């Protein structure tokens, strides 16, 4: 049983209300959320300090221009926040941030995390051609029904971690028939309860995990299986990977937008991977030909090994890939395998150490011969 604050406004308006309250009551110094930043109705994450500016905030807008985890890390990389700041983020973004914090790429101090039961986000191209605005009604319908929203990112359709693990407040969306009339804010922490003291709206108690949620969960599991089948990821051997990644243009964009790829300079961009004359001369001797720039697949495999244990399956990589490679699907699969191996859910809790940083006597028995 958790405490709930109910505001009789539609979910987004209610959330805006909450944010305005927090700012005006000086409970927080700033609010981090999505915002419509101009007439082209471009939507971007923003740091808002003036409650006036909240009128353009779109905290629930189904778009992920960047993984917020990456931005929050950028924000707190050098120092932790000195004053409370509320951040409205999706579960996978919150998990990504926590993974980064574990790697000392940011700090949770003074953050108040507001998240939602996440219906998923649309691919970026829908926002560039403006279609996203037309799709909003359909989106809201599916949310009420607790269905998988059509046309959202493939990995969103297959996402099982759509309930935030460590948010201070959670806006209940999925399966809520009245999201257009009321906004249910689950107060998961004392911090949360303190913050909303004095805010109008009725307090009640309730469960976040409704049957709709459970339904959606299994729907998504099904969807995932289909997704993996599509590119029959299971049977992708090395040759399969070479085939799939064959059209990679080596822009490393996937790494640049990946919240887990936090390196200042990616090893594959470093001098160590420069191609010495000797390298391709021997290659030519062996094979009579060589693809340049080299390391196309190697890069993907390398990233896979570095990232998979912490991959939160946000889908940014696929979304930006100029060559339309289903990267996130592959990473989701491999990630799942690796994470199960350590029964580790990336970003679930900040206390849980990253598997590769701790050593246990009894591990990998299965891989020993």
């Amino acid at each position, binding site marked *: 049983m958790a405490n709930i604050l109910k505001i009789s406004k539609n979910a987004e308006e209610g959330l805006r209300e909450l944010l305005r309250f927090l700012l005006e009551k000086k409970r927080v110094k700033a609010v981090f959320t999505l915002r419509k930043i101009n007439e082209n109705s471009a939507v971007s994450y923003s740091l808002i300090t003036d409650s006036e500016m909240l009128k353009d905030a779109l905290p629930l807008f189904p778009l992920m221009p960047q993984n917020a985890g990456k931005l929050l890390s950028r924000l707190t990389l050098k120092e932790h926040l000195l004053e409370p700041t509320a951040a409205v983020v999706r579960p996978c973004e919150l998990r990504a941030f926590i993974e980064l914090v574990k790697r000392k790429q940011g700090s949770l101090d003074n953050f108040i995390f507001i998240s939602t039961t996440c219906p998923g986000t649309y691919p970026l191209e829908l926002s560039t051609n403006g279609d996203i605005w037309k799709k909003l009604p359909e989106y809201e319908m599916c949310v009420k029904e607790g269905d998988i929203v059509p046309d959202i990112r493939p990995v969103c359709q297959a996402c099982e971690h759509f309930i935030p693990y460590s948010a201070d407040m959670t806006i209940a969306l999925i399966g809520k028939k009245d999201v257009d009339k009321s906004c249910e804010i689950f107060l998961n922490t004392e911090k949360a309860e303190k913050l909303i003291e004095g805010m109008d709206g009725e307090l009640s108690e309730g469960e976040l995990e409704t049957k709709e949620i459970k339904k959606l969960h299994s729907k998504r599991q099904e969807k995932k299986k289909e997704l993996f089948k599509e590119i029959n990821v299971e049977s992708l051997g090395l040759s399969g990977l070479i085939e799939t990644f064959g059209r990679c243009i080596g822009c490393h964009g996937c790494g640049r937008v990946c919240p887990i790829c936090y390196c200042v*300079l990616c090893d594959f961009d*470093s*001098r160590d991977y*420069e191609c010495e004359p000797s390298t391709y001369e021997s290659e030519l001797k062996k094979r009579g030909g060589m693809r340049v720039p080299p390391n196309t697949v190697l890069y993907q495999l390398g990233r896979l090994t570095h990232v998979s244990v912490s991959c939160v399956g946000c889908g940014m990589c696929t979304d930006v890939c100029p060559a339309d490679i289903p990267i996130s699907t592959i990473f989701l699969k491999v990630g799942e395998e690796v994470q199960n191996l350590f029964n580790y859910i990336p970003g679930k809790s900040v206390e849980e150490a990253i598997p590769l940083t701790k050593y246990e006597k009894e591990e990998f028995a299965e891989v020993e011969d």
Partner: protein
Amino acid sequence: MEEKIGVYICECGPNIAENVDIDKVINVVSSLPSVGIVERHKLLCSEDGKKFLKQSIQEHGLTRLVIAACSPKQHEATFMKVCEEAGLNPHLFQLVNIREQCAWIIEDKERATDRATRYVRAALRRIPYHQPLEKREIDCNPDVLVIGGGITGIETSLLLAGPDRKVYLVEKTSFLGGKLREFEKLAPGMESTDKLLKHKIKNVEESENIKVFTNAEVKGVIGFLGNFIAVVKTGENEELEIKVGSVVVATGFDLFDPTKIPRYGYSKFDDVYTSLEFEKMNLNGKILLKNGQPPKSIAIIHCVGREERGYCSAVCCSYSLKFARYLKARFPDVKVSNLYTELSVPGKVYQKFYEETKAMGVDFIRAREIEIKEKVIKYLTEDEKEQNLAVDMVILTPAIQPSSDASKLAEMLKISQDEKGFFAEEHEKLGPVSTSMEGIFIAGCAQGPRNIADSIIQAEAVAGKILSSIIPGKKLEPEARTSEISEALCIGCQTCLEVCAYGAIYFDEIKRVSVVNEILCRGCGNCAASCPSGAASLKHFTATQIHQEVVEALR
């Protein structure tokens, strides 16, 4: 260790105190993080001001220091010295200019105070990022390599050589003395050259501190001020490695080739000679026409190639006068005509020399569009009249130009050439014999056309620069605020090499990265500014330091 920043605000008498509410500044600043102490003083640069500063640095155990006073041009050095005396690394100090950039230019006291506060805040925001840069010392070899055994090279060597300083003199021909050996006399004194040259050469050859290499050539020079390694190919074709602290380039000049201007008829007609050819004829005592007869009428043509080269060669006018004297001395009634454009006789002696020569019955004709035909010269007078002048011998005075191997040498020594191809001095006014490469000097006609006296001056000047900067046993203290290039980030585009004026950056061909030679670097920051990826950065002026300062100033 706990940081403790000291902030000192100088009243500079009324200069700052009257226009800035210092107490207000102190109020704001005191509350800022890790500020240990904030104080004001009547005049920090005064003797007791400095004493006070030194004491408080030590008493309060300050780890960093911010002083708000006058322009760094004025007193940065002063206060850095105080830091050193107080045992605080002088680079952990920041001087804030609230006089020239604040008190003196902002009428309204309130605004001035606000500005001053901003500046101090900015400094406080910057100073935590300061690094304690350390002074370094490097050994310095006093020995000298002199390239070129003409009068300039000789003079330089003689002045420099001593028990505590070896000189290596490299001459490409088989003898010392250069072109001067072929001059019988010298203008304007008409003393015999031997008197000047012979004993100097003797002294060089006898000095145990000068090693002369004739028929020799410098193959390569690497290194930097105080630590050059030169490879010299000797007459015996062996390659010697010589360690020196400085290099002097005194490679002299070549003559402009008159065949480039057909109208002068050089090599077309008999009895048309260049000045050097004539000097030789005169030295050998036979000034004769091809037909064996002595000349009766001679024309000396000035400014041959001046237009083509684009400068006045400075010496032609005066040696033409000398030639006239040679001729008058040998053939009293020979007719000598000087065809000139502008008579250049600068300085206190040459005008007289000219007038006396003229008085000997030498003609001076201002002429343009000179054309030499068989035994006759066509030209235009000042008032555009065509004239013919019958002569049986013509002496051309070709322009002085850089010696043919100048560019090769410039490349080897990494020193620049000016647009005319002469070696470029460090500063046209204040650095006449220095180059952009510390420790490499230029003298004589290698730097530009000049007469013997001026060449000697430059030779002595080089000696002056070397003797005063490279002292046996004394170490060099290179600049501490140098730039550095991140090996990880540098991608080897070598833009920095192009913009470095001090030859302080070299390219590591194996790692394919640019590397800063911290001894040569003067910390101008050109490389940092031009590096697109920020691989190059300037210590004490890093992007972060500047950013922090600016952001706070704008806050």
